[in-house]
């Protein structure tokens, strides 16, 4: 592959993706204060609202929630919605236009005009507008909405959850409110450093990100006898990408807003902790918790980092890390060690510059900050030749820690603007890179950039894996560009670069007339990265094989010149596939590859039993033979698997927990509801 800097013009986004971004961002942006108020709500009848409710339940509810509170799609009721749409600036026709032209996301424009008007009436009714005897028609869509007299009116749960917006402190990150102590103190540093085989203590099981379990009760020989031990339905629909954390028989999982503790062998709920955002939620996603010193640490969709009591779920402290109105949110599972919690923000696609932080685990106070996008005199700032006010650089997933050397490894995502590289000439450090920091000070030790000057949205999103083999020290990372990179941690040199998915025209400029290129902007390795079997010296990687047709599109006048972006149209999602591949972890030599039925975005988990656990978008949980990739067992869970797959032991029995139900109608066309499935091979206790 030629360096990405040779390719200047790239996709803007898929149409659906643009729609999602546009609407989400729209809801996140307050209108000008001077907006003129020109009229009250338009007329609609209660019959229309009733009929609209039927449409809503069938077509909209799964994304926007039963109470219009927003799930995978934005909230359609409440303060945020009214702030956006009822500021006296928008004709109702603007809202109707989005609904009627872009919804439902899987079949835009497929409903009748009457259905679109009815569902618009229903949304109005749920926001406190009063029905009348006159029906809503297209003729009155020009009326500009102002807030109804009832303020948030009859808005749904989302509105109730959405607390009054607080003024943003100038000195973020900042602890908000009181700080409390946890009722327990485990696991300790020692517990995390020398982990009991039965535990799975971080998003990727261990600090080094290896995801390898020494448990060997489930083997190549008996994996076909796996059975469902228990199921826990969370009662939520939407993004479900959690990586379960399991400690001494307790499992902790998250949804975008909420946190749950379960008995890991029976799926019995122990507690639930619900979070109410106080600011906009740019993207509702969460990938899990860090567990340390009696506390759970998790990010929120509105840019906060919470510490919860692991015993009860009560909030111990709340650090407002970043302003979500600027696009920031915390989707990653933090990592904690040595009295500190390490985390960073996402939001690059909204133009927010990323940071990596260390916080005091007891108080939540910020200890140090590393700017993922250097400015001023910081090293790397000169790689932004036109400045980097909004350079991007998200931390999408958990960090990796080499505790012996106090080195923190962080994958940094794509630069912003995503596709119009002409607006940001230069290599754009430290985007699409792994940065290695001294965990005590936040000072950079070294870095490796996978894609200089990215114009494809080819984030380095998934966590790196740190390991030693045959006396050598390695770091492996895989990116959305469809490559696995193995580096020498001593020389920092690239040892091997291997393909994880199909590449086609990936080194060419975007076509004027449209050309199919691979991977598309959601190809390669997403948020779950490589896993290592340290005994066999093998790396395992899941990837997405999904191409797109790119065409020069967006043009932008900037400072006397015209710059070009592009448009991308994905192949039909039904044609998207995935891979599970194995490589020699020292040389990168490919060992085997298995074409999968769907894009593979779930975690992959090798074990001492020679089994590889993972799952696909069809909802199939799978046990593969780690030596060959052959399928040993498959079970359809009923919901797409896009989160972690963890294995652990309770009372001598090995279990596997799978997060099923990552519903994404807009991008992956997947369904399901958030559910934890726990599997075991019965009768193996103690063996």
């Amino acid at each position, binding site marked *: 592959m030629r360096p990405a800097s040779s390719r200047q*013009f790239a996709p803007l986004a898929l149409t659906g993706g643009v729609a999602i971004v546009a609407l989400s961002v729209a809801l996140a942006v307050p209108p000008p204060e001077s907006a003129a108020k020109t009229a009250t709500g338009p007329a609609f009848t209660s019959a229309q609202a009733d009929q609209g409710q039927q449409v809503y339940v069938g077509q909209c509810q799964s994304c926007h929630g039963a109470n219009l509170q927003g799930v995978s799609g934005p909230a359609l009721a409440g303060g945020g919605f009214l702030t956006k749409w009822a500021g006296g600036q928008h004709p109702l026709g603007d809202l109707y236009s989005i609904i009627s032209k872009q919804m439902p996301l899987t079949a835009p424009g497929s409903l009748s005009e009457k259905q679109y008007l009815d569902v618009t009436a229903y949304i109005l009714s749920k926001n406190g507008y009063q029905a009348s005897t006159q029906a809503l028609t297209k003729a009155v869509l020009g009326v500009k909405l102002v807030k109804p007299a009832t303020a948030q009116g009859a808005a749904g749960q989302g509105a109730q959850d959405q607390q009054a917006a607080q003024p943003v402190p100038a000195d973020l990150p900042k602890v908000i409110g009181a700080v409390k102590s946890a009722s327990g103190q485990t696991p300790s540093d020692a517990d995390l450093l020398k982990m009991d085989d039965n535990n799975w203590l971080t998003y990727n099981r261990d600090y080094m990100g290896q995801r390898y379990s020494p448990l060997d009760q489930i083997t190549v020989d008996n994996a076909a006898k796996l059975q469902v031990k228990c199921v826990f339905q969370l009662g939520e629909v939407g993004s479900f990408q959690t990586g379960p954390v399991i400690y001494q028989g307790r499992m902790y999982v998250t949804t975008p807003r909420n946190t749950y503790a379960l008995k890991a062998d029976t799926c019995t709920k122990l507690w639930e902790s619900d979070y109410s955002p106080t600011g906009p939620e740019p993207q509702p996603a969460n990938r899990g918790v860090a567990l340390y010193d009696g506390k759970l640490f998790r990010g929120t969709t509105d840019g906060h980092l919470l510490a919860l009591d692991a015993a009860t779920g009560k909030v111990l402290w709340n650090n407002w890390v970043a302003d979500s109105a600027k696009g920031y949110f915390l989707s990653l599972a933090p990592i904690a060690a040595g009295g500190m919690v390490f985390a960073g923000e996402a939001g690059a696609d909204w133009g927010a510059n990323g940071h990596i932080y260390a916080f005091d685990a007891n108080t939540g106070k910020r200890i140090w900050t590393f700017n993922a996008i250097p400015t001023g005199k910081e090293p790397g700032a000169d790689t932004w030749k036109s400045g980097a006010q909004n350079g991007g650089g998200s931390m999408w997933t958990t960090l990796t820690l080499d505790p012996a050397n106090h080195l923190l490894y962080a994958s940094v995502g794509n630069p912003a603007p995503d596709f119009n590289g002409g607006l940001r000439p230069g290599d754009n450090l430290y985007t699409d890179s792994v940065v290695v920091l001294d965990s005590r000070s936040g000072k950079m030790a070294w870095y490796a950039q996978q894609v200089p000057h990215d114009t494809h949205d080819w984030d380095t999103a998934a966590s790196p894996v740190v390991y030693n083999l045959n006396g050598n020290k390695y770091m492996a990372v895989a990116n959305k560009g469809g490559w696995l990179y193995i580096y020498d941690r001593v020389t920092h040199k690239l040892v091997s670069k291997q393909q994880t998915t199909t590449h086609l025209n990936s080194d060419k400029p975007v*076509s004027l007339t449209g050309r199919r290129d691979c991977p598309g902007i959601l190809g390669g390795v997403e948020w779950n990265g490589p896993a290592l079997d340290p005994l066999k010296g093998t790396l395992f990687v899941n990837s997405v094989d999904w191409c797109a047709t790119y065409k*020069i599109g967006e043009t932008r006048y900037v400072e006397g010149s015209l*710059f070009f972006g592009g*448009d991308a149209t994905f192949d039909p999602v039904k044609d998207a596939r995935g891979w599970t591949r194995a490589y020699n972890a020292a040389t990168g030599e490919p060992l085997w590859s298995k074409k999968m039925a769907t894009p593979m975005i779930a975690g992959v988990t090798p074990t001492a039993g020679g089994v590889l656990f993972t799952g696909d978008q069809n909802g199939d949980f799978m046990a593969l033979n780690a030596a060959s990739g052959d399928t040993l067992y498959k079970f359809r869970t009923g919901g797409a698997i896009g989160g972690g797959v963890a294995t652990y032991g309770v009372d001598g029995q090995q279990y596997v927990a799978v997060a099923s139900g990552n519903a994404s109608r807009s991008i992956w066309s997947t369904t399901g509801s958030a559910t934890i499935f726990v599997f075991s091979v019965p009768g193996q206790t103690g063996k």
Partner: protein
Amino acid sequence: MRSLLLSACLALMAAGPALAYIPTLNAQQIQNAYAEGQQLAQNRDSGYPLRAYTLYAVKDTLKLEAQNGAVDAVTIATPSERTRFESFLSFLGEDPITPQQAFQRAGLPPYNVAFIVFAHGMDAGDQTFLNRFSMARLKLGGQSLRPVETSKSGTSISQYPRTVGETGIRFGGTVTYRFELPKRLIGDTGTLNFTDASGKAYDLPVNLALYR
């Protein structure tokens, strides 16, 4: 020798096209415009230069400010400039075309000019802003001309990263007003008038002698 001539030509372009509007291009002029486009596209980071053809631009095109309404910039398109542009674009897309094809794709018949308005939505969700632009008038030599064609691009999401207080995301697009010029007015001065999606009115001076 040919490269010397081209270099001289490009230097002239960079300094500003201090040549009058050319209403109809001969074969050599088409060839020259084509060659300029190919040459310019070899530096992929620099973008396509439009400063010399810019009638109006806000002070900071990466920053949203309410008083600027919906318009980032207004440029003038001439047969020569558009031929150059099409050549530039074809080079970028690795889609080779001939000089004559570049001229044809330019879509500007003899004695035509177009004004390209680079615009954005009024908020992050506004995708209909192009529909709220008024018709334009070109007043030249005391004569008021209506556009023979008004075309609108699609919209695509973009960023204004220097915006204060918000993420600065907007849909962007262009409105293009094409005018047919009476022969007697091709070296004249006047104004371009239109109203943007925010209701802001524009009255921009036009001097055809400044644009080749």
